[in-house]
């Protein structure tokens, strides 16, 4: 069963075709890899499916609904959560607060409830706090949960971003180069974490330059080059695809 299906997505920036006619689909429970050389359009594709960019052409289907030009918060509510390539945490808030903000779409308290400190609001607040704490432990944040996000190390910040995204209870978790800047042990832990996330029933879309990680984790992989999908399939197939090899080695760099 398909969770996400892109059809003919195109995105231009001025004269640059960042994405051209990209179609692909991701099944429920899959770990789907997205690779390609620098500037291939991977992050742009993320921005399109999370509503940060409006595609110039094409549309996508998510969880049975069609989207063309939806707002980010609508897509987040629909169940797409993401992390950012250049980390975008709420720097001056604590790690715990960051994750609690991730719970925003799954909680309801409004202005009146908050001012009245209603019972429903207090219960929700406590559940939110507990859940956030659990998620921080799940991603293995060892520092106190009250540490400001900006005072965490690079690897910790990446994991905090994953915890924050998981707090949204997404159907699809989109990770933009989560292993960037991590050392070997951190990457190994990350791999286990992503497997755990998939086993919990969450579909994962993964952009990564670390070939070993992609090959070890992904069920299927798509390759972007100059905004076009040039290959798709199981990792081994893709790795030996001559077009992919030339794209990476730049032999026939067109």
């Amino acid at each position, binding site marked *: 069963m398909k969770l996400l299906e892109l059809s003919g997505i195109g995105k231009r920036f001025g004269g640059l075709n960042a994405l051209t006619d990209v179609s692909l689909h991701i099944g429920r429970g899959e770990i789907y890899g997205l690779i390609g050389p620098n500037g291939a359009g991977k992050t742009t594709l993320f921005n399109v499916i*999370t*509503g*940060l960019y409006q595609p110039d052409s094409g549309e996508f289907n998510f969880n049975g609904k069609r989207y063309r030009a939806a*707002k*980010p*918060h609508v897509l*987040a*509510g629909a169940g797409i*959560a*993401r992390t*950012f390539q250049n980390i*975008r*945490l*709420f*720097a*001056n*808030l*604590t790690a*715990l*607060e960051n994750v*609690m*903000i*991730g*719970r*925003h*779409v799954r*909680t309801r*308290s*409004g*202005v009146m*409830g*908050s*001012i009245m*400190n209603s019972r429903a*609001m207090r219960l*929700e*607040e406590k559940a*939110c*706090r507990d859940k956030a*704490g659990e998620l921080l432990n799940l991603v293995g944040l060892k*520092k*106190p*949960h*009250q*540490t*400001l996000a900006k*005072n965490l190390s690079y690897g910790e910040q990446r994991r905090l971003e994953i915890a*924050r995204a998981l707090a*949204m209870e997404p159907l699809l978790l989109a990770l933009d180069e989560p292993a960037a800047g991590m050392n070997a042990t951190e990457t190994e832990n990350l791999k286990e974490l992503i497997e755990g996330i998939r086993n919990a029933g969450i579909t994962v879309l993964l952009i990564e330059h670390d070939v070993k990680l992609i090959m070890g984790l992904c069920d299927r992989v798509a390759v972007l080059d100059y905004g076009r999908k040039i290959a798709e399939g199981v990792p081994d197939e893709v790795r030996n695809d001559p077009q992919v090899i030339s794209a990476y080695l730049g032999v026939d760099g067109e």
Partner: protein
Amino acid sequence: MPNAHEAGIFKRQRRRILLAAILLVLPFAVDGILGRGWLRIVDFAMLYIMLALGLNIVVGYAGLLDLGYIAFFAVGAYCYALSASPHLALAFPQLFPDGVHLSFLIVLPAAALLAGGMGVLLGAPTLKLRGDYLAIVTLGFGEIIRIFMNNLNAPVNLTNGPQGISRIDPISIAGLSLNATQRIFGITLPSVHLYFYLFLCFAGLVVFVSQRLEKSRIGRAWMAIREDEIAASAMGINTRNLKLLAFAMGAASGGISGTLFAGFQGFVSPESFSLMESVMVLCMVVLGGMGHIYGVILGGLLLALLPELLRHSVLPMQQALFGKTIIDPESLRMLLFGIALILVMLYRPAGLWPSRVRRRELSSDERPDETA
């Protein structure tokens, strides 16, 4: 752990009772020690604190730099001035032969709603703007309101232009006029005392609402927008609605403060709502500690009292030393003000009294987790 927790609650409770007691006797102390004029100044300071707390919602929580905030104070003030004074008899003699004299308790919520609505009106076109650009547009908005007040005396005399509206009804609640000395429970309370308690109630309300919101889902969403709007929207936060909410709540607080101001002073004119006032309120927020309620209160208090302190110390001092006034306290105020701002930004960039999380972060990183 539970014992320590209980002790903490107990301590906080005791501190609250102490604070309440101090605030209750404060007008008598100020009146007795410094004189009635000072109590009047303290009353005005309370209005400024309310303004600063309202702006803190917009700037401190949601991170929206608003340089026209005083416009909402103006809206509240003119609301009350028009609906509780003989003025409208001039414009509509047939309709209101004696002017309009609505009760304070009716005007207040209406003014808060109207100011809140104006907040949304200002917010809506500025949703895509950030930082400096937002500041410029809001600054323009503040000026537009002031210029309207200045010029709406023709063709129909709505605001009486630069002369302003006078003979505004004093605030009276349940038949009890706050402009006269009243005896309540055997205690004689002069007018300034009564206004102090009234303002205290509303300042308390604004503090209460701010505190509750700050620690709620809504407050966190505001702070998320302040920290990173794109990430916030990717977390499912409807940034448009939450920004408008912040504008509306801040504006409503400004409107309430304005209503109280008009009733207390009995006179309003556009002069009280200049850009300088917006800047002043913003300075109270920034100087005190953006996003931290107690810091903002401190900032409001300091900046509201500073000019009066100067007036009462600099003039007599110069007279005693030189026999004449060399520096006018008003220009000295701006000078000191500039120096203070520079010093604070250099040495305490988070404000005089920043919030606990930030202080804890500065003092140490390794503390046991206290979330349990």
